[in-house]
């Protein structure tokens, strides 16, 4: 029987939740790295027992942890994130020029083709790659040294590179997203980059044709159709059918098109999920109701999914890396909230159950389907 393993990063440590393919009874283990922010935990698609975790805290900085046994034991990997060459400045909240400094790893993306290759998206925004299992990190500096980089300004969470998508059909293609600079694409393994933000509209940017400056919150893709991208932006849900060369709004009938997460059904490339959040100042679900919205048409037409989710007195947020889907035949969808709940659906969102209720604020959720 297959198993499912959820890797949950929280504000005060990491948790591993495991179940069989029925996904009804769950074992909760943790907290590992107790007391630390664990921004992200993700496993290798090649060997699911190889896990990487980003552990960070203001006192002691960044530690990258690696496990070779599915999270039973961990060892500190390399944590030297040295920007390659002189660093420039980026804009600060008051529009002053602010020196680049490394603060933390937001997202770890293991390679689908090499066990020891893993990418890290960091704050202040840059992309790093390790080819030795996280022991050493090399910056792919073409992104940070893009001509527009001095104009990049941070979002409320910092100037972070939070999304890394490795194209399964074009091994030279990488897509990243930075808050709040926008989405970028490389077609030469990360050497050179170009902004892919045409069609995005952000009211806080005076220039309607601005190439960068958009606060992209998350981008998702189905591996069978990597040229189709879905984006949750700081307002607006967007879709591209040409790998980001152009975008169209697909917010449709959502009650609010502000949010952080977006994800795609494992077997239905046009079925996508978002969790609407009230507004950019009110980072909680609208009307006190936790509702996941699903579109089966790749956007525009959305239905609310509420069965098993609180519909009263609920004011949680769902952060950008905190939703994931498994690859079992009956696609499981999972998400974690800032209120410390992790919810699971075994029927593509028709109904939900809380796996666990009282974790620290959830920062990220990833799932592994173990066969």
């Amino acid at each position: 029987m297959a198993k499912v393993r959820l890797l949950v990063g929280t504000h005060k440590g990491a948790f591993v939740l495991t179940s069989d393919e029925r996904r009804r009874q769950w074992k909760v283990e943790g907290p590992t790295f107790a007391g630390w922010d664990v921004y992200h935990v993700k496993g290798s698609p090649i060997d699911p027992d190889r896990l990487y975790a980003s552990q960070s805290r203001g006192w002691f900085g960044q530690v990258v942890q690696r496990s070779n046994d599915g999270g039973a034991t961990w060892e500190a990997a390399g944590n030297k994130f040295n920007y390659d060459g002189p660093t420039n400045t980026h804009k600060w909240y008051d529009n002053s020029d602010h020196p680049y400094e490394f603060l933390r790893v937001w997202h770890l993306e293991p390679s689908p083709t090499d066990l020891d290759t893993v990418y890290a998206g960091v704050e202040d925004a840059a992309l790093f790659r390790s080819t030795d299992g996280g022991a050493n990190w090399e910056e792919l500096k073409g992104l940070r040294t893009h001509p527009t980089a001095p104009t990049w300004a941070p979002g409320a969470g910092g100037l972070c590179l939070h999304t890394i998508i490795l194209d399964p059909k074009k091994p030279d293609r990488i897509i990243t997203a930075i808050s709040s600079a926008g989405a970028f694409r490389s077609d030469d393994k990360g050497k050179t980059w170009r902004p892919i933000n045409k069609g995005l509209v952000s009211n806080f940017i005076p220039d309607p044709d601005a190439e960068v400056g958009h606060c992209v919150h998350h981008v998702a893709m189905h591996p069978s159709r990597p040229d189709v991208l879905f984006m949750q932006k700081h307002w607006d849900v967007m879709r591209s059918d040409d790998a980001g060369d152009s975008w169209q709004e697909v917010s449709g009938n959502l009650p609010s098109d502000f949010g952080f997460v977006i994800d795609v059904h494992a077997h239905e490339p046009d079925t996508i999920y978002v969790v609407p959040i009230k507004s950019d100042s009110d980072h909680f679900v609208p009307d006190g109701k936790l509702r996941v919205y699903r579109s089966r048409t790749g956007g525009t037409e959305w239905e609310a999914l509420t069965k098993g989710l609180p519909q009263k007195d609920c004011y949680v947020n769902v952060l950008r890396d905190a939703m994931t889907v498994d690859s079992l035949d009956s696609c499981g969808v999972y998400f974690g909230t800032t209120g410390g709940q992790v919810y699971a659906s075994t029927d593509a969102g028709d109904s939900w159950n809380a796996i666990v209720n009282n974790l620290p604020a959830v920062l990220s959720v990833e799932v592994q389907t173990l066969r």
Partner: protein
Amino acid sequence: MQLEVEGEVTQRTLLDAVEATYPMLRGTIRDQVTKRRRPMLRFFACEEDLSDESLDAPLPERVAAGTEPYLIVGAIAGG
């Protein structure tokens, strides 16, 4: 912890020895690249705050002799 430090015992050589002996602590006391003290930690010895003192000044003899500790103290702040 007790460490052997070769040569003159200064904050720099002492912290180098800490990191050489416990490599998992690299980057958690001093920035990995700049080697600057992390802002939410401070260094003390013999009832003095040495955080802003020269890293290359000799530490007190009692620290070098191992009879007084060198303290790395995290900010007492929650969150």
